[in-house]
């Protein structure tokens, strides 16, 4: 390389060294975050009785509660979602929690809740809506 090319080279690499990490860190900081619900193991004894079951290819939902109404939404995700961030909302657009890997998730819900929506908050897309 000739002298001017060497200078340009150094400049370009210092710029890349600064800009790349900066952009990635900014992107991470701007990722919306939601409370992660704890992934619970199914332990039948400690759980409330099942009031209603809904099943599809993707998940199985158990509404658990007492005679007064549903108190807990148990979501069994059968396969990991294609979307890296997925958030569960109730019918009043309150956040219930975030879901990710396949497994069992439990969220407390209002007895009057009639539906849940799973959204990708980054893409602002609705992944699925489920009537309870």
């Amino acid at each position, binding site marked *: 390389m000739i002298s001017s090319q060497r200078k*340009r080279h150094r400049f370009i690499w210092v710029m890349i060294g600064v800009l790349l990490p900066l952009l990635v860190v900014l992107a991470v900081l701007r990722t919306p975050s939601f409370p992660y619900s704890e992934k619970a193991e199914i332990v039948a004894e400690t759980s409330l009785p099942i009031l209603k079951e809904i099943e599809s290819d993707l998940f199985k939902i158990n509404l658990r509660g007492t005679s007064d109404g549903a108190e807990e939404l148990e979501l069994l995700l059968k396969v990991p979602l294609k979307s890296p961030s997925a958030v569960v909302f109730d019918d009043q657009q309150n956040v219930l929690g975030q879901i990710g890997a396949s497994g069992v998730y439990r969220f407390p819900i209002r007895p009057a809740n009639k539906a849940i929506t799973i959204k990708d908050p980054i893409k602002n897309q609705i992944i699925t809506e489920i009537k309870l």
Partner: protein
Amino acid sequence: MGLDYQLVLWNKQKKRYDLVLFLFIVIYLLGFAVVTFTTNANTSLETLIIRAFGSLAILMLHIILMIGPLTRIDKRFMPLLYNRRHFGVLMFLMAAVHGVFSIIQFHTLGNVNPIVSIFTSNLDYNSLTNFPFQVLGFLALIILFLMAATSHDFWLANLSAKTWKALHMAVYLAYTLVILHIFLGAFQQETSPLLLGLVGLGATIIVALHIFAGFKEVKVDQAKVSEEDGWHYVCSVEDIKENRAKMTTCAGERVAIFKYEGKLSAVHNVCRHQGGPLGEGKIVDGCITCPWHGYQYLPGNGQSPPPFTEKVETYNLKLVGNKVYIDPKAHAPGTPVDPIKI
């Protein structure tokens, strides 16, 4: 270039290089398929192809970008440099398979032109996390295509070494775009954390290597020269090995001073082919031979022996006792300068 036996030698090396590259690609792709199907048996073939070729392309791009600074740091990496171009063209082909399959999978189902669809299916251009990351991959692929298409020596000859080098520096832009393509893509598609970790590590190594090698060169450029009546002192005659060169810096440019057959000659250090460092080559059959791909120049006039037409700048030398001095003013490329006798 030079004698016939040398061409045969180079060609054999070239073939071996390509064979190793080819085997590497086949083994990587097969390995990727086996690991994917054993860990996640219901992966679709399209997804497998997109991921296998995408990750292979980025791995190859990392290796390609490491070769340059590594040879600056240690000469033993030199063999990797030879035929780096085939490496680059193959990397483009791998990236192209990834790009084409992504377009087929994600953009051919609608009624919009698939290329238009890359740009318009996601319009969140002022978001970072939901940035249309496929656009970044697409732009990178276009740059890589231009580089692969102009990689042949025909273009090198028609574009001039300087323009060609400038064009090929666009690989850094392509690299930046690809890294962002992967990282911003990871917010929107499920991406393996292993891949992200490796790419992050790779990018750190690449940037550090280039900056380190770059600043190592600054030292060489800024080395103090002692001056006498406009002549720069270089070294004593014994410091130069027979058929080898000593490098010095004249007005910011590198110059190589060769010792051969009891004579000394100085030429500009940069090979006209792709900018290889002539001063790191040796004299073969009376010709300065570039260490990168073997272009040759006569030490007395900086010209390639006929039928070749490449020329490099030459310089005047003088010998006082056993001390070598150089006149930092370069002669026009190909100007004959009588070698000085030792």
